[in-house]
């Protein structure tokens, strides 16, 4: 690995992705091990993210590590006006690895530069959330048996959704075909389409669900957030267009899986949950194994 810390999905190569996937599969078989015995992992959550924090803490606990940290900035010295640098330098003295969630973009890169111990970015504002992307890769690999030559549909807010951007970058190593479904003003940004063009990767853009979904191997759903709309009428008009319902999965491929980074609001109807093609809850469980793999890899265990 080029970097000890994991800040951005670009810090890892294709080879690194495959190594993490291999290791995650190993931890899935043996999730309880004592390899973190005597290690202290700091989880610094400057903004609350219960789901991500519990996933990391579950991963550490199953490997026999101890956890220190805080769950939101209000209960930390940030409240007293301490700088990020001082917080990180102090916590680095007490721990072997820092997992950090922070609302400010680029804070994780900065923390990795001032810290003496590796930093794992658990989300820095709208910028990066690489452990989410790695667990998405693991979920795709596990359900499809490969990452190569897949047809991936991304649905919802493709403009601001950092998970879809990172997943697009990571999957670009594996010759995918992309289909983007979003309202006009939440389309995939031009910079990502130019990137796909430069790599000769095919993509198609749609404004609603169509018959094309029958070609999908993966449908990656995201939330269309009400706050993104300046006009509430506009939101009311589009909000129901991007809801996946069970009947829409009729005639789709056997191997199709529906993924969602969660939390969902209404974009996947609950009648999908019992369909074997619904995979979002297993996807969350895969997050624990993937985070075990990431921590073990970074600490050379």
């Amino acid at each position, binding site marked *: 690995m080029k970097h000890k810390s994991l800040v*951005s999905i670009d810090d890892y190569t294709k080879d690194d992705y495959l190594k993490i996937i291999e290791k995650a599969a190993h931890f899935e078989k043996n999730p309880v091990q004592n390899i973190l015995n005597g290690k202290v992992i700091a989880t610094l959550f400057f903004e609350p993210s219960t789901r991500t924090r519990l996933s990391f803490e579950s991963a550490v606990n199953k490997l026999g590590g101890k956890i220190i940290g805080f769950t939101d900035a209000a209960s930390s010295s940030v409240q007293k006006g301490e*700088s*990020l*640098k001082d917080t990180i330098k102090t916590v680095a003295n007490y721990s072997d690895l820092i997992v950090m969630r922070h*609302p*400010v*973009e*680029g*804070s994780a*890169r*900065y923390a990795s530069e001032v810290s003496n111990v590796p930093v794992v970015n658990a989300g*820095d*504002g*709208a*910028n*990066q959330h690489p452990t989410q992307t790695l667990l998405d890769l693991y979920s795709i690999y596990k359900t499809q048996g490969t990452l190569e030559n897949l047809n991936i549909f991304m649905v919802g807010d493709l403009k601001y959704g950092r998970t879809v951007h990172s997943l697009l970058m990571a999957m670009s190593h594996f010759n995918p075909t992309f289909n983007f479904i979003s309202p006009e003003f939440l389309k995939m940004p031009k*910079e990502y389409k130019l990137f796909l063009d430069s790599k000769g990767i095919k993509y198609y853009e749609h404004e609603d669900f169509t018959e094309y979904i029958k070609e999908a191997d993966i449908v990656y759903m995201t939330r269309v957030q009400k706050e993104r709309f300046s006009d509430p009428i506009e939101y009311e008009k589009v909000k129901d267009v991007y809801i996946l319902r069970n009947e829409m999965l009729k005639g789709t491929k056997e191997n199709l899986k529906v993924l969602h980074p969660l939390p969902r609001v209404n974009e996947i109807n609950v009648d999908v949950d019992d369909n074997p093609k619904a995979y979002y809850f297993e996807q969350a469980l895969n997050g624990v194994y993937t985070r075990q793999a990431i921590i073990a890899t970074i600490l050379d265990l």
Partner: protein
Amino acid sequence: MNSDKKELRVNAIKNGTVIDHIPAQDLFKVIKILGLQNITNTMTLGNNLESKTHGHKGIIKISELFFEDDDINRIALAAPNAKLNIIKDYVVVEKRQVQVPDKVVGIAKCVNPKCVTNFEDNITTKFTVVDKENIALKCHYCEKITNKENLRLQ
């Protein structure tokens, strides 16, 4: 005759550097980037001069000061077409064109209000230049792009 006049202006210093073809509105940015406000060398500044090719331009003449490439390329963000004349004994001994560098460290401000460099004190900004022609800088921290239109100096 015209070129003679220009020569006269350039040759007005004995030894030093003339930075020509600075966009008039960016002269003071260039001064700030080079830190000229802090040096005691004899210096002549001209601004809003007629330029045949660039509308109105600024010019800086500094005695007894010669720049390294790395230093002078720092002004490329504000004055990509600037030209340098190196003067020795009243004669132009070398002409140089400013080159846009690959990395920009500690000069520009990130346009993203949510970027850590705009929150935490004492972080030196770092950018990779992703488009040299139109000036587009990718922030090393938040990974957002700052364009020429929204470029501010730190």
